[in-house]
């Protein structure tokens, strides 16, 4: 193995891992807090990208890119809150909440996907990169936008992790997920935190979409593939642990990049899945999940 190969694999792996980590952490946050899987997470990612596209491109307002991004992210917060209110909140007390919300978030996914197509059409779109040009990273050339993702993702995720770990609200978020009634009894505003996490997670999804929207092409189903990956990562990393999720995202990113390199793109997905099954056979509680019981 030459240094070139190692560097190429590492760089690709980092790009993939960063994207996966951003996506998965939003999903993981909602899982941790509300105990549900948000299948609309991928569509939220697409929606964020389309918002930004409208802001920067179509609106023709010649907005500064950053402002467009900020407005798009704010829009996502609103959408997140709306979703929580309409399709999650009514089912809090249902003991089948997991299954019911699988359904309702699937419905939201369909709604958003088709709604996006209705609003913006089906043709491919692309965002202007936040930073133009190319960068050479340890011997491998990538677009500056991808480099930005590599740099930005750990910062964002680190901030999120520190927020959950050390801020009072952040700890509250973790507590709520494990036992809402007990959380109430120590003075946590459960309802507020539910909304907060959903808004945060939607914003993360939107931001991922915006970052990725200038590397890949935006379509109404643009979030589907990252969603599936994120779902796998959240489970694989050990449910309910953000650090596990993030670590799993980077590991899977690098492993995927390596697989692409060594067995080719064609068999890489299958190999990855086979690998996942194998690891789960050995560690039934996920990669970083602690033993249950």
């Amino acid at each position, binding site marked *: 193995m030459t240094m070139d190969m190692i560097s190429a694999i590492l760089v690709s792996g980092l790009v993939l891992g960063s994207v996966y980590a951003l996506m998965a952490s939003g999903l993981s946050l909602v899982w941790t807090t509300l105990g549900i899987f948000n299948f609309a997470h991928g569509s939220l990612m697409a929606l964020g990208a389309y918002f930004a596209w409208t802001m920067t491109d179509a609106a023709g307002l010649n907005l500064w890119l950053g402002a467009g991004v900020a407005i798009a992210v704010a829009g996502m917060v609103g959408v997140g809150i709306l979703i929580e209110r309409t399709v999650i909140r009514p089912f809090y007390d249902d003991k089948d909440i997991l299954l019911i919300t699988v359904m309702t978030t699937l419905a939201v996914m369909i709604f958003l996907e088709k709604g996006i197509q209705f609003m913006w*059409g089906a*043709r491919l779109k692309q965002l202007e990169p936040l930073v133009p040009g190319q960068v050479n990273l340890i011997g491998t050339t990538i677009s500056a936008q991808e480099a930005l993702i590599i740099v930005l993702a750990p910062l964002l995720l680190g901030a999120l992790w520190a927020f959950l770990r050390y801020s009072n609200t952040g700890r509250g978020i973790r507590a709520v997920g494990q036992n809402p009634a007990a959380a109430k009894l120590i003075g946590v505003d459960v309802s507020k935190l539910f909304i907060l996490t959903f808004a945060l997670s939607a914003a993360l999804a939107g931001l991922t979409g915006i970052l990725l929207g200038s590397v890949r092409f935006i379509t109404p189903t643009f979030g589907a593939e990252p969603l599936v990956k994120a779902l796998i990562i959240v489970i694989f990393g050990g449910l309910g642990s953000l650090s596990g999720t993030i670590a799993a995202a980077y590991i899977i990113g690098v492993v995927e990049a390596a697989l692409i390199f060594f067995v080719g793109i*064609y068999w890489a997905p299958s190999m990855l899945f086979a690998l996942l099954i194998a690891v789960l056979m050995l560690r039934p509680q996920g990669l970083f999940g602690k033993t249950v019981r």
Partner: protein
Amino acid sequence: QDKVAKIGVLAPMTGGAAADGNEMVNGARLAVEEINAAGGIAGYTFEVVVGDTQDQAADTVTSAFERLAGDRDVNVMMTGYASGSNFEIELMAEQEMPYIISANAAQTRDIIAPSPDDFPTVWSISPSYDAYETAMVPVIQQLLDGGALELPNKKVALISSDNPYSKTIMEGLQKNFEEAGWEVTSADLLPFGEINDWRAFLAGVRQAAPSIIINTDYLPGNAATFMTQFLEQPTDSLVFIQYAPSVPEFLDLTKDRATGVVYNMLGGVLDTPQNPRAAEVVGKYEAKYGAAPGVYGPALYEQVYLYADALAKVGDPTDRLAIGQAIGETEKQIAAGMLRFDPETHLAVQGEDAIPIQFFQIWDGKRELFYPARYATEEFQTPPWMK
């Protein structure tokens, strides 16, 4: 004048291929409006009814077909493509439904050629795709001979995604290149679908340094990504991409990065002074919908006119066999060239005098036709990244 003949259009209106689907319906509507405005045909006015094939799954295609077929006024159906396998051709044949199809010519031929008489009403305006495999080597040789192109070696790298269209073309090209004495440095297969990372393939290409790179994956998004990543560290090679550069958004997406890319087209719009029909159709489409069409807008536009001609001849839309036969007898200059059908395969006839294969090069956001020479609008130029 109250009689209505409905035209069933099978098209993916939702899902990943919705952009194509919208174009199909737009093209058909454009023609229908014109015909109706001109007073209709044989006492009939036309109306488009759409059957959404969604993701082209067998059951949704069949549902769309049945829904349209259940309408007594639908006595013809047309599409760009309805399914990956064209299995619906058999459904059409069972009901003797006139069916004009555009893409997937290979599948159409596989179904029809064994017994063409069983499919009297089904016709493909796309010619056989064989030319995609055979035309490439001679065209390149011609460029080399004419001095328009200089290549450092006789090596070619091929890549395709795993779908019958791309794969067949790649395999055919491989054979033809090898027979002509070229070295094929790689012939890789990628999974079908969105591909975000071509770098592994491109890394291999840089090692082997072939003078031609051919990518037969036809998805425009993938092609655009491919170009972007190729240009990160370009090699001294001619880049050919199958089909995708013909799709309108490819140019929007790649902008100047596409300059120099070569592609070819069978059954696409033959936009050249010798075929004014093409400019006319494209112009009307752009005027109405505000965007340039790809292949399927003009295709469906022409399909409606084929049907209109047949109906004018037969007079009765319910006489489906007669309509089908009339369509098969067509001989007409359409946007793609001169249309005639091959009775053995029910495909359009291919050739310079019929539907020609066209080679284009993209230059400054425009598609320049450089082959066949008699239709050419511009000379081939050495791509900017080549020395």
